[in-house]
């Protein structure tokens, strides 16, 4: 009886620990060999055959196709530069420049990877749509209400993620330092 109870206890612990860790890893994103610049995180290796088992499992679960490394690199931000989670009710400003690439796109998604509905049906920007300063830098207002200049509407959702994709770029697996890759800064200006 004691033996049975003991083994059941051990098996229950195994199931909880094992499945719990898997669930946590696949929903919170565990991956090796990431490239983190400011609030932006890229996992260039996930777009190759060297993708680690965690990345493979994450994509299988979410149903997305990773961007192949020969195509481009995708940077994701869930937080601003002070570590605060991006909130669609706040005015957030993106400013700076992007790494060298033939094209880039910036898209706003909800945490499930769906586009966010808004009054002007704008879900993102491409590098050709952005109004820039003379030195090539730009500001983008990510805010629930209309702003002058480059305005990316949040639709007022509570949480969102920004995805900046660089197409035809030298940024990749061998990129190490943020010096080579200047990513725009993300700052929360005001919250209601």
């Amino acid at each position, binding site marked *: 009886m004691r033996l049975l109870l003991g083994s059941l206890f051990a098996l229950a612990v195994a199931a909880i620990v*094992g499945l719990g860790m*898997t669930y946590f890893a696949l929903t919170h994103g565990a991956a090796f060999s990431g490239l983190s610049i400011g609030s932006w995180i890229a996992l260039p290796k996930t777009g190759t*055959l060297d993708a680690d088992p965690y990345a*493979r499992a994450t994509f299988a679960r979410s*149903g997305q196709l990773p961007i192949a490394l020969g195509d481009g690199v995708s940077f994701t931000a869930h937080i601003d530069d002070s570590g605060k989670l991006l909130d669609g009710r706040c005015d957030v400003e993106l400013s700076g420049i992007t790494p060298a690439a033939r094209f880039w796109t910036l898209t706003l998604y909800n945490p499930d990877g769906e586009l966010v509905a808004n009054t002007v049906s704008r879900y993102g920007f491409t590098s050709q749509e952005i109004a820039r300063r003379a030195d090539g830098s730009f500001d983008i207002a990510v805010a629930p209400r209309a702003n002058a200049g480059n305005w990316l509407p949040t639709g007022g959702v509570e949480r969102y993620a920004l995805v900046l994709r660089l*197409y035809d770029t030298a940024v990749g697996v061998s990129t190490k330092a943020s010096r080579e890759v200047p990513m725009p800064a993300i700052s929360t200006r005001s919250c209601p």
Partner: protein
Amino acid sequence: MMRWLLLFFGGALLGGIVHLATVIIMPSTATQDAYLRLARIASVNTVTALPAPTPENATMPFMDPAFASAVCRYDLTQGPLKLTVPVSLAYTSVSFYTRYDVAYYAINDRAAGRRVIELDLMTTEQHNQLPEEEDVTAADRLIVESPTVTGLIAIRALAPEPGLVPMAQTAVAAARCQRPDEQKPSR
């Protein structure tokens, strides 16, 4: 007390193994992965244009709304495939994925260096069986080896501004993936 502590640690250790095992078998048991999502709408060895993602409806999560895209779900059991993709004005890319959604090759319009991206897709075995002279005479022929017999080809064209969406859609709609013998002789 000691006994329960031991059982707990034994269980936790076993849990680690359970964790690694579930992560590794996850891709082969997933029912909502990109390949199966696309299998519902795309027939084998033909190019199927994907609808542009909207907040209400998207084929896959995290699709880039600035792109017009199409997929070819391939099956190489009958033999190699020939892929032709006319390049659009802005940026066109072709990415290859295994059955389990791992990207193994991608090429863009500039790397291809022509007006039409032309590729032959085959398994390593089919590549080895290719007559040698054919391999040599077609030096400019791009051959891509697929690690799996089935998989996905994603064809994508960028619309740098909303007005260029029809141009990008036309470019991906003109892409073809088919068995070489099904093709009409062009020369």
